[in-house]
């Protein structure tokens, strides 16, 4: 080593610590470490730092990734949010002028299966709306004056916490809610709202395993329209005999409320 104390620079000491040296240079560094206790102590301390840092934080990488961090879910949320923007929505309405048609607009590429799954939820939510929204005396099983009980009951039956969206800003107050069966024999919840003009909207939440995650979709049958979206284990719909714009505004609140619980 020609009398020089070490024929390597500081960078190589770190590269040795981090195992980033070539075989040849490693021998040179190790010779120097063997000859210099102070240097060897420093290198050992750096290695220990690495070990302790890995011991401290390494386990985080082994934890299961929370659902809300899965890219597919984030992408779906982003799509919905984009849908909820009024300007974007009105552009899409123009494009989707075909009456009662599907807006097959799924950037996630779920394709036919997704459309079918959403249609499945939509038809049940629309049926439930048609049957109960016209009821004068028995529109719901549990009225809004027992809201706490209603929430507790339906949360229990659906197996997850449900929060009742507050639609007062859109002029709708809660009438109450009921438990419904789905076509697949699972429980679903329906919340009914009414405005001062007597118009009603219903919020439908069902246990439904589609494995899909979708953006907002719209379906209308005759006068009743519904916004539908899917989570892998649940189907959601907001149905009403009101124009699409106010129904969209309502859906936005419902979505925000239900999403917040997850």
């Amino acid at each position, binding site marked *: 080593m020609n009398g020089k104390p070490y024929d390597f620079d500081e960078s190589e000491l*770190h590269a040795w610590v*981090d195992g980033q040296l070539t075989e040849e240079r490693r021998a040179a560094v190790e010779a120097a470490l063997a000859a210099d206790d102070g240097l060897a102590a420093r290198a050992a301390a750096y290695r220990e*730092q690495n070990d302790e*840092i890995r011991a401290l934080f390494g386990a*985080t*990488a082994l934890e299961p*990734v929370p659902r809300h961090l899965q*890219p597919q879910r984030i*992408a779906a949320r982003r799509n919905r949010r984009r849908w909820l923007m009024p300007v974007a929505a009105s552009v899409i309405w123009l494009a989707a002028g075909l009456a009662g048609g599907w807006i097959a607009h799924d950037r996630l590429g779920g394709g036919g299966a997704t459309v079918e799954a959403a249609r499945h939820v939509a038809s049940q939510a629309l049926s439930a709306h048609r049957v109960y929204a016209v009821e004068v005396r028995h529109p719901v099983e549990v009225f809004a004056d027992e809201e706490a009980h209603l929430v507790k009951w339906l949360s229990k039956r659906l197996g997850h916490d449900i929060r009742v969206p507050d639609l007062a800003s859109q002029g709708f107050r809660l009438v109450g809610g009921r438990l419904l069966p789905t076509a697949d024999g699972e429980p679903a919840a329906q919340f009914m709202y009414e405005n001062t003009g007597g118009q009603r909207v219903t919020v439908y939440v069902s246990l439904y395993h589609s494995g899909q995650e979708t953006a907002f979709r719209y379906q209308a049958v005759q006068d009743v329209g519904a916004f539908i979206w899917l989570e892998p284990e649940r189907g959601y719909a907001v149905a009403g005999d009101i124009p699409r714009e106010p129904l969209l505004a309502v859906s936005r609140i419902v979505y925000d409320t239900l999403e917040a619980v997850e």
Partner: protein
Amino acid sequence: MDLFCDSLERWIPNLRRYARALTRDREQADDLVQDCLERALSRRHLWNEDGNTRAWLFTIMHNIHANDTRRNSNRPGTVPIEDDAAQPARPPGQMLRVAGLETAAALQELPDEQRQVILLVALEGMTYGEVAETLGVAQGTVMSRLSRGRERLRRLMEDGAPGLRIVK
């Protein structure tokens, strides 16, 4: 499945681990990861299938973290002091070595830029070249931050990390 989402998903455990080490707070770390993924999704057009997705994601996360830190820096006393000599002298005392905790406390004493380099190398096993790419600095800068950071950390450990020294 979508190739882009798959390639993001692959790095989430790494992003979480690194975020946890940066913030030392579970909630804050996952918020950071979520923000990072959101931004990555919004910049999908910039993603290069054959490029280094990990470095790309870590760069995004760093930028967000730096902005967050800047936003929170109106609190007094958070300006990092680079110079060891400017550190107050620590009174001698017997230390109780609590494996890891001491390291964690000492890490917090480092300026962000030194801590980042040390963590990327130790946790991620990144090459110095990748660290440079991720942080957008020259490799020489990476080496000098690594060198200064490790030496500072070593001295802090020798003197006893703040708050963990137990005087008997």
